[in-house]
């Protein structure tokens, strides 16, 4: 992987990410935790990159004394959209845009209630993958505040599996529940309780596959402007099936009230967990298939294991009428 190649060269040590879960309850506890973090940033002569809610921005702004405009940068929290596969690329862009000679201290607030249970599961997995994605990055500290009073039930316990460190009071400590070696994804890919259409595909069926997907997605209410995007995503996964999964695969397609789901299964295995969440540099010719999939879909669920093959669900929301 050369995922760090698009970052500015720096004399700073590539110490990687320090990824902290900050579990609090209530607004006064929030301030009591983030202010020491800001002081630590100042001591480290770091750039503060803040992806926080509008309310928190207002709350903390008076508490950033002595830090100049280029030392405190607000970025649009959640601007990466609905698909958690775009969360890590957003942070990469945000920190790459900062001056290379200073470390980055960042605050990462996520709108957990704004995502479906399946998307929250993928987002927690992306939080875990972030440790690997930034393992070789220049000094980067990421504080993830979660209000246990408003977060979905069990959120803090589940998130603890993704975070190597916790922020308690004004200091960092090892996260006791962190899953260092292997992250166990929750099962959020239950069988749909609706009619499912199935199509087996090989190299000669790509046009037919695209035609079927377009026809169904349009009929079920996907925005017509996004049909080509869905065809692109399905083609990329099917191409991988044909190239790396015995030459064929199976599409299953269905819809709920909220989304159209395309599930593609094949015998291949995706070994690189970071595939599709690191933007290939401009000079690279290939390796863009899964990147495109993550950019265009509203949710991507990849389940891949040796002996079991690969099963990928692509979701596209249905336009609100």
């Amino acid at each position, binding site marked *: 992987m050369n995922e760090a190649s698009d970052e500015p060269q720096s004399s700073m040590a590539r110490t990687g990410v320090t990824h902290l879960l900050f579990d609090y309850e209530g607004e006064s506890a929030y301030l009591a935790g983030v202010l020491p973090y800001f002081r630590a940033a100042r001591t480290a002569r770091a750039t503060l990159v803040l992806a926080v809610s509008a309310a928190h921005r207002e709350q903390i702004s008076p508490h950033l004394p002595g830090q100049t405009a280029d030392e405190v940068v607000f970025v649009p929290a959640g601007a990466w959209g609905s698909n958690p596969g775009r969360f890590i690329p957003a942070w990469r862009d945000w920190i790459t845009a900062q001056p290379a000679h200073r470390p980055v201290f960042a605050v990462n607030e996520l709108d957990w209630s704004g995502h479906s249970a399946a998307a929250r599961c993928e987002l927690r997995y992306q939080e875990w993958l972030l440790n690997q994605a930034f393992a070789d990055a220049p000094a980067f500290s990421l504080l993830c505040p979660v209000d246990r009073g408003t977060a979905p039930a069990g959120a803090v316990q589940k998130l603890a599996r993704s975070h190597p460190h916790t922020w308690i009071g004004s200091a960092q400590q090892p996260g006791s529940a962190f899953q260092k070696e292997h992250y166990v994804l929750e099962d959020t890919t239950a069988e749909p309780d609706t009619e499912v259409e199935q199509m087996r595909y090989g190299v000669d069926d790509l046009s037919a596959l695209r035609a079927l997907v377009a026809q169904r997605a349009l009929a079920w209410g996907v925005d017509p402007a996004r049909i080509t995007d869905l065809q692109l995503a399905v083609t990329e996964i099917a*191409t991988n099936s044909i*190239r790396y999964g015995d030459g064929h695969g199976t599409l299953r397609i269905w819809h709920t009230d909220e989304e159209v789901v395309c599930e593609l299964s094949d015998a291949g295995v995706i070994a690189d967990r970071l595939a599709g969440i690191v933007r290939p540099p401009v000079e690279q010719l290939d390796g*863009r298939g899964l990147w495109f999939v993550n950019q265009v879909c509203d949710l991507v669920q990849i389940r891949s294991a040796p002996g079991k093959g690969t099963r990928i669900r692509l979701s596209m929301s249905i336009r609100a009428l």
Partner: protein
Amino acid sequence: VEKLQTRISRQTTPRVVTAAGEIDMTTQSLFAAAVAEGLTGADALVLDLLGVEFADSTGLWALLKAQRDAAARGVPLRIAASRPVMRLVELAQVQRVLLVHHDRATAINACG
């Protein structure tokens, strides 16, 4: 009907390779061959892809390869891109290397 039709206009300056239809793993080599043929001996090359209704990462691969080969020979390369082609360039954020235009005349004029 073929999935992808290609045509090379040698009498024009710059030379124009026109492609229409779908570019995926089954037509990528056909597309790449037409581009390579158009590039051979060209002073400047325009790819007219306004009739491309679908293209995926294999199509983008062919475009980036064409750009690399053209640059190595000092041949200016411009692309008249359909919406699906434009979309790929945006998603991959390769606008810096692939010079795309919304119509053929602008692409031709841009070759100088």
